[in-house]
């Protein structure tokens, strides 16, 4: 009998279920309990860079919007720095880079305000194009889905992005690119996430 490897096994995932809001966004479930809900302010007041809005739908295999999703966003600041001790560099006072948003119960629309992140140093010294990491949980999703949102006005950086280029099928790469428009003078990026179907979004095993 060879020696044992004394690693523990990761706790297996289970679906967040239909009532994820109770735990992670109780105001949306219909009651006030905490002094402050977490994840409603990604940037804080001092963040530099362009203020933008991201919005979209999560669409299931029947083409219908999913109305009970919770998404979390994790991003660097405009200088490409994550608010984390292992990432060298400083972020602005109050910049957390993390947010949490739920879909509207009637329409399925979700959206959040943030700043556009900068280029981030990737592996082997290759710069990654500006991107927001997204994590998606809901009833019917057994393990949270990881994807990345990139920006359509960063064509040059996107073309050189080492993660986008890992995706073998060029036609699938566009599922990660949010489309910019202007509304009342503010930049709005549209990012619809397709769980299945012809335009199935690329999800990552990270």
């Amino acid at each position: 009998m060879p020696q044992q490897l004394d690693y523990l096994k990761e706790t297996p995932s289970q679906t967040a279920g239909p009532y994820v809001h109770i735990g992670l966004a109780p105001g949306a479930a219909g009651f006030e309990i905490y002094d402050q809900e977490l994840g409603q302010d990604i940037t804080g007041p001092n963040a530099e860079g362009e203020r933008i809005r991201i919005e979209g739908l999560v669409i299931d295999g029947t083409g219908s919007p999913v109305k009970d999703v919770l998404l979390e966003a994790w991003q660097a600041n405009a200088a490409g720095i994550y608010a984390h001790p292992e990432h060298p560099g400083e972020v602005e006072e109050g910049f957390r880079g993390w947010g949490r948003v739920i879909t509207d119960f009637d329409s399925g629309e979700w959206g959040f305000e943030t700043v556009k992140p900068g280029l981030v140093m990737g592996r082997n010294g290759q710069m990654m194009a500006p991107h927001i990491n997204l994590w998606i949980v809901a009833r019917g999703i057994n393990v949270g889905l990881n994807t990345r949102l990139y920006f359509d006005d960063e064509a040059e950086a996107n073309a050189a992005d080492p993660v986008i280029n890992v995706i073998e099928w060029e036609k699938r790469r566009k599922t990660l690119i949010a489309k910019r428009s202007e509304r009342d003078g503010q930049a709005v990026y549209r990012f619809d996430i397709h769980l299945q179907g012809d335009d199935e979004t690329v999800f990552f095993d990270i």
Partner: protein
Amino acid sequence: MTKAPPIQGEFYQRDRRWHPPAFHKDYKTSVARSPKLSLISLENTASEITGPRFGHSDLAPGDNDLLTNYAQPEQSPIGERIIVHGRVLDENARPVPNTLVEIWQANASGRYRHKKDAYLGAIDPNFGGCGRTMTDENGYYYFRTVKPGAYPWRNWVNDWRPAHIHVSVFGTGFAQRLITQLYFEGDPLIKTCPIVATIPDPDAVEQLIARLDRNATIPLDTIAYKFDIVLRGRRSTLFENRLEGN
């Protein structure tokens, strides 16, 4: 210009055969919500190794006590009073300190305080159903709550969820982000639940079952259950792949 990240170990790959697959025909909601194409495997970058951090200023002191955090003064929720406690560890069996743990659950009659839950079970005016806490320097956490009730749900015609508490944990990197469910030792509904059954390995199911902990039980007061949570571990050998290149 950003500086190169320091040398840091990557997370161990997630064992996708230990986790439930995205598609499971018996859990009907997963059918239209499961990606059909393969996940694209990524090697860790700064985006996966970093993750949000929280502090005690984000929470209030009583947020981990579901017996009192929504109750009227001098009142208590109905139900079996329980402590749920344990440690957050990584796959190397090292504690994960100062990480956020959030829970939510139905009340003792199996009813959620949620505007979309219309089950017949009564709402408890003294029970909100959510709590949150930070692990201490040893990775230890605890909550006080009531044992949730079983409840019916629309899947097959007559499906009932075993009593469970939803648990959300962060860790230090976004790649460790995890949501799961805690079940209770001895519950006969665990065996018949299509959501539990999405997990292919019986040993993995066992890992989600909290055990009665008589030593932590407070006599004449509260029954305790122990539930340890394991997040992905990180590599730390000298021959590490260097994230910033060779």
